[in-house]
């Protein structure tokens, strides 16, 4: 993998992402043509702008009244370049998986756009949407529920060809499926087996083969290894890296395991409470953390350090560095429904916005202007009727 964007300087500041060159397609055929057009390596292929997904909270049996909303994704913007791997990390509940579903058009976005080659996929339908689906594929988190237990491996990997018959002629499909099994390191003779006859790692390979079948350009990986045994995780991640080089893929790699994300990603985005808190190369993110709750700050919790496993050396890069303004008392876990949880972050001097990013020249350090008094910002208050 070339060192795509692996420069240490020039932070890729999310809110200031470049303007999107939209392609105005008057007809469906033009849209399909735009979708099929090739993209140069290093050019943006997927551009997300102010993506929002709110899940309404309703009350009442027959006449539902909206009493609030879970702001799962609340204004996320980023670019994915052709051939790169963009890691997205964040704690549980921060909206990572919802972003994945929005990128796949599996959920309807409340607002915002997802431009794939200049086409807003949130507004596409029919043939154009089908063409997009061919080019953006997904690998799911849980290999035990992502494969239909009533279908053989051959049927599972061959299903993309049934849905997009133009990709492979009918007589050719079995051979294609066997090739795919071979590509992901499974014996092509397992084609007639059922998913329950495979281990977790093998199942995830089947899921990857299904994702590869249509020869997509982008694969969205929603925590693809977090359900796997640690030794198998490495195999699957390495397989995915190999396939990226072989098939010229772009990955959006969502995970909560920071070391795996750092291993595979060219750039890393950190999500916090539905927003992209910061985005940059792995060096910027991991070694020069700017956001109080981002991995650089959180890394070095449990886990073996080079010295004592409990107390990493003071100069170890992963040693937890307290940030200026960090509260002495642990805040309640942030949650989109809990007002007050993690509220300290809203004190960000720049914009009062957890998504606010440091400008260039702020390699790290204090981002919270006002020091927090003890107890402030604690005590989560659940949103209730009327709020």
């Amino acid at each position: 993998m070339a060192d795509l964007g692996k420069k240490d300087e020039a932070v890729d500041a999310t809110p200031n992402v470049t303007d999107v060159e939209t392609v105005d397609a008057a007809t469906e055929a033009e849209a399909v043509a735009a979708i099929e057009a090739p993209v140069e390596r290093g050019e943006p292929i997927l551009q997300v702008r102010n993506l929002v997904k709110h899940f309404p909270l309703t009350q009442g049996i027959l006449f539902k009244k909206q009493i609030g909303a879970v702001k799962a994704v609340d204004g996320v913007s980023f670019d994915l370049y052709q051939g790169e791997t963009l890691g997205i990390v964040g704690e549980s509940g921060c909206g990572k998986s919802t972003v994945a579903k929005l990128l796949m058009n599996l959920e309807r976005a409340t607002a915002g756009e997802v431009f794939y080659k200049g086409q807003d996929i949130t507004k596409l339908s029919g043939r154009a949407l089908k063409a997009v689906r061919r080019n953006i594929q997904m690998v799911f988190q849980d290999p035990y529920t992502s494969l239909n237990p009533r279908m053989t491996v051959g049927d599972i990997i061959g299903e993309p060809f049934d849905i997009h018959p133009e990709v492979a002629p009918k007589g050719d499909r079995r051979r294609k499926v066997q090739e795919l099994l071979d590509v992901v390191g499974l014996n092509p003779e397992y084609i007639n087996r059922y998913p329950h006859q495979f281990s977790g790692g093998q199942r995830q390979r089947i899921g990857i083969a299904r994702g590869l079948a249509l020869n997509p350009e982008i694969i969205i990986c929603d925590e693809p290894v977090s359900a796997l045994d640690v030794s198998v995780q490495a195999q699957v991640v390495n397989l995915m890296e190999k396939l990226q080089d072989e098939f010229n893929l772009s990955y959006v790699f969502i995970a909560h395991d920071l070391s795996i994300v750092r291993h595979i990603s060219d750039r890393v985005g950190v999500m916090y409470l539905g927003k992209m808190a910061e985005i940059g190369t792995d060096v910027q993110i991991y070694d020069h953390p700017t956001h109080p709750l981002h991995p650089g700050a959180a890394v070095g919790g449990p886990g073996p350090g080079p010295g004592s496993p409990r107390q990493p050396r003071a100069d170890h890069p992963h040693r937890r560095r307290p940030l200026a303004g960090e509260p002495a008392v642990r805040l309640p876990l942030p949650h989109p429904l809990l007002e007050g949880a993690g509220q300290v972050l809203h004190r960000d001097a720049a914009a009062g916005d957890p998504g606010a990013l440091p400008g260039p020249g702020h390699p790290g350090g204090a981002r919270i202007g006002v020091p927090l008094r003890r107890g402030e910002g604690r005590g989560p208050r659940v949103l209730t009727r009327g709020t």
Partner: protein
Amino acid sequence: MPEPQYEDGQTMAPTGAGGAVDLATSEGERLERPPSAASGGQAPAGPEGSPTGKPRSLWSDAWRDLRRNPVFLISGVVILFLVLVSLWPSALTSGNPLDCDLAKAQQGSQPGHPFGFDGQGCDVYTRTVYGARTSVTVGVLATLGVAVLGSVLGGLAGFFGGGWDAVLSRITDMFFAIPVVLGGLVLLSVVTSSTVWPVIGFMVLLGWPQISRIARGSVITAKQNDYVQAARALGASNSRMLLRHITPNAIAPVIVVATIALGTYIALEATLSYLGVGLKPPTVSWGIDISAASQYIRNAPHMLLWPAGALAITVLAFIMLGDAVRDALDPKLR
């Protein structure tokens, strides 16, 4: 690209036991295994024989469980016998169930007439044999109707959700509130036809909400699985998702409940006939015969004993079959 190297063929064994993989090294081929394991690209066969051998699907697993279950074997034999009798009753008796002689009314067992005669002088044995056809017809057709109507309505409601689902669920609740026997007394008392159809129609009308509710629940469960999302991500149509992914994974509870319900429909037919609102003569039915015999239970208990015994065995056989099917298809329900 090195020669193909597969993950180990030992099916359920944890993978990666032999792969010395280091996450820190970022270059080179990291799927390396000892060359012996991958020589010739031929992975060793798993414990279930050759990799190309006949696969075991979940349905064939269920069938295997069933064949070893004595409850299934016993009830299966009884039901097979019942079905054969209802198809060819003349194989067991040469008599005509409507050929009666009042002179022989209420007489006991005689040579050629092992079960004796009923109040009208009809041969109880012949009527019991012919009654099987009515019971099996009513049970099977009512179950089919209920299962098709209920699973289609419930399945679509579960799949599409929204307002249609809300309306259907409230309708289901309303039907659940109707007492079956009372509803039968009211609705069927206005029917004059002596065929089985009004009774079957009544059972479908009152029976579909039960299946609909189960189908809806199991479709909602199946719909949330990632493989349905995966199919949608591939661009699959709604009908493909429903037919290829959801139906095969949601049908088991419907089959189980329908099989158990079959026995209760047979019993319900007898109940309604006994109350005089079900089937009507000249249709031959166990329920009608039980009803007629119940007034003479002190003088001629044999008139009641044989049709009631046949009914009990039939209902029991279908309920046992349903239990066995449930155990095989969905062990968690046990």
